[in-house]
């Protein structure tokens, strides 16, 4: 039976265990915590892998447990030899950081991850960061190429078209922001007007009482 085959396939493909036949759904009670995993756990498994990374000062961290879990975060990707988009993006994020002010490093954490981990060692990233007005709460990260690539895909910094996706010059110029425990995520163009970006961040992450 086709359906069973497909379910079997998924049991292998996905991390989730294979559960009973189709009929099982009919009797299972309504819940937002379907199966054994909560919605938040499922989201983490799909989108927020716990890959090992290294910060620019050389500290070993894990993406989910150390950088994202229970936090509000901004995430983007750059590489230091990129001469067009990346310097503008990093400078713009620096403006965003200044405008956000004190919450950065306390409530909100910012992560810039390299797309070129072979070249961009922690020392290279530290030197790169020193050229910008990087305040506390903003980390630059590198790691193993396979881990970086997995993270990039899981976070949606990817093109469906393989050729397009392989062109690093054409990397996705997005600033991903999210509130991890609240499962509230969005993405804005990283080169957008910083006032516009910060207003959206306030709406989504900070000021629950600001309407306009």
């Amino acid at each position, binding site marked *: 039976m*086709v*359906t069973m*085959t*497909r*379910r*079997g*396939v*998924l049991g*292998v*493909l*996905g*991390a*989730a265990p*294979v559960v009973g036949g*189709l*009929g099982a*759904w*009919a009797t*299972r*009670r*309504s*819940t*937002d915590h*379907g*199966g054994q995993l909560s*919605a*938040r756990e*499922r989201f983490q498994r*799909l*989108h927020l*892998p716990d890959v090992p990374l290294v910060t620019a000062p050389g500290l070993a961290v894990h993406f989910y447990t150390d950088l994202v879990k229970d936090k509000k975060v901004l995430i983007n990707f750059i590489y230091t030899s990129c001469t067009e988009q990346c310097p503008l993006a990093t400078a713009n994020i620096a403006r965003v950081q200044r405008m956000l002010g004190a919450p950065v490093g306390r409530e909100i954490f910012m992560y810039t991850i390299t797309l070129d981990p072979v070249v961009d060692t922690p020392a290279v990233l530290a030197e790169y960061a020193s050229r910008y007005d990087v305040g506390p709460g903003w980390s630059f990260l590198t790691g193993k190429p396979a881990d970086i690539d*997995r993270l990039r*895909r*899981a976070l*949606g*910094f*990817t*093109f*469906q078209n393989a050729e397009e996706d392989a062109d690093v010059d054409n*990397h*996705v*110029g*997005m600033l*991903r922001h999210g509130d991890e425990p609240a*499962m509230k*995520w*969005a*993405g804005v*163009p*990283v*080169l*957008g*007007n910083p*006032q*516009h970006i910060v207003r959206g961040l306030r*709406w*989504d992450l900070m000021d629950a*009482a600001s*309407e*306009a």
Partner: protein
Amino acid sequence: MNLLRFQVDRAALRARRNRQELIAAGLNRRDMLTMALLTGGGFLVTQQGLSAWASGSSATPSSFGLGLSPKVTPFVEPLPIMPVLPLRPASAFTPAPTIAANRTINPATGLPFEGRTESHQFRERFPVQQQFITRMGANPNVSVHPDLPAQTFWGFNLGDTDFAADPPLSPGPTIVTRYHAPTLIRRYNQLPPQAQNGGFGVPETSTHLHNFHSGPDSDGGACDPVQARFFRRGQFYDYYQTMQYAGFDSTHPPLGNVEEALSTLWYHDHRVDHTAENVYKGLAGFHLAFNEFDTGDENTGLRLPSFPAFDIPLLLADKLFDPDTGLLVFDTFGLDGLVGDTQLVNGKVQPFLEVRKRRYRFRVLDAGPSRTYRLFLTNPDNLSQSIPLWQISSDGNLLPRPLEIKSFLLGAAERADVIIDFKKIAERFGNPSRIWLENRLEMVNGRKPTGTIFPAGQGTPVLEFRLLGGNVVDNSFDPEPVASPRVPASVTDNVFAPIALPRIDNLTPRLTRTFRFERGNGQWQINGQLMDCTKFRFTVQRNTTERWILQNSSGGWEHPIHIHLEEFRIVRRNGRLVRPGEGDFGRQDVVQLGDEDIEILMQFRDFRGGYPMHCHNTVHEDHQMMLLFEVADVGDNKTAP
């Protein structure tokens, strides 16, 4: 016929493409064999679902579970008909609705009672005659199919305070209004806290009345440089509609131009950056506007089939369900668009509808997020038949002459009203017991349809009509004798007079503006600029006409472009004049923009304030394929703003 059975050559084609996608997604042949995805001949074991999974997702397939939705049996439940939102007396409103926004702090929440910040325009001139209340919330007991678990959707209720007795519905209740009866709808945001969203959905909301001629205070747009557009949990928002035709304060005082009558509208969430997930989670419904011509009674006026018995809204929505849990899932991090593999109509998977042998008016809506449909009538017991139907509106606006068609195209957010005559089908097509409304257009990702039209019976039947026997009264208008091409269409057509196509030959555009939709580094731009909620890109002079050229150079994408405030007329596609008898020859609020130039003519009448133009592939929209413009007494002259 068996829905899962495809012809061998098609299966091979599809399997090959799916396999390529899997490879592109990072799985090699050995991985696939290990996982028993491939047979020895190189075919994928399954045909359906993989495309959506491999392409709709931005994560690796090994970590992502989207798209292989549980396969369920179609046509096991009847089509739900959304209830009509009941009118409420003025006494039901505490505090009473005010023209200025009610910014008094509600001690229970610490927030202003109302999310609105602007005053209702023209409300003194057109006092409220009809009032409604609805409450937005989560319904944890929604069943879309008996084989899938009861689960949470977000929706709108009928206005009572007790969700146990009056649960939120998705689609929401149908709001029925009449022209010249000004309307106020109070929406309460009682959505659950953010962290109880089940994985996606944002409990701040802006409810757009799609296609109505609304003031910016009640349009339900995405954002504004100064004003609030969305409102929060614990707040309400009073949406006011003059229910007058466009032109009431400009070209056609005092009540507007009847030729601008709108009939099939819909309401949906428009929360900036989060519209796709919120609409996908259920925040959408129909809003119908009748008048003394399009009356809802087939014995009066234009005699269109009577509402609600024979005038039925159909909200089409394609979804993904988690293969492990059977729960609705959303690809939060996808950029291209979301194409589902499970088809819902009015909240049920592939339902059936028992119909009498007479004419029906179906108001068909593509509620997105990204799919384009081409819908046919299929006799599953005789696939060689080619069954006609009659389109009477585009985007809910009556056409100057009905079109006799064999299929119709619907992009995201578009509507078409069609007349299906089951008596004629019975008489002419061998008295079939069932007829499918079948989508035969292939779409495997959010970019655009592949262009492949499946043969009859090999697409996705979204709805099965079951023809009941016996004679039944039908006093409704028969479009067949007057439909194009039987009667050649012309620029003077007015079959539904006085709701004719407004003249445009007497309009002189104040200026021509060009908008180039582009994509760079995966981000959307219009004329090289990114979206900015903090400023208006340009200012249109109130009560003038403008010619806009929409250009798409994003390369292999199609975008349903939607402009708020008024409909437009498509004048040319790639320099070629749109002619009577074509589907584009009517009033539109969405236009499918492929790799082409489209020239439209639009008026900006009556209201002042800010409105958006955006892509209505809501995934693109949420990634900021949008701009804001302002309508003011003095306009600017930016030709490429």
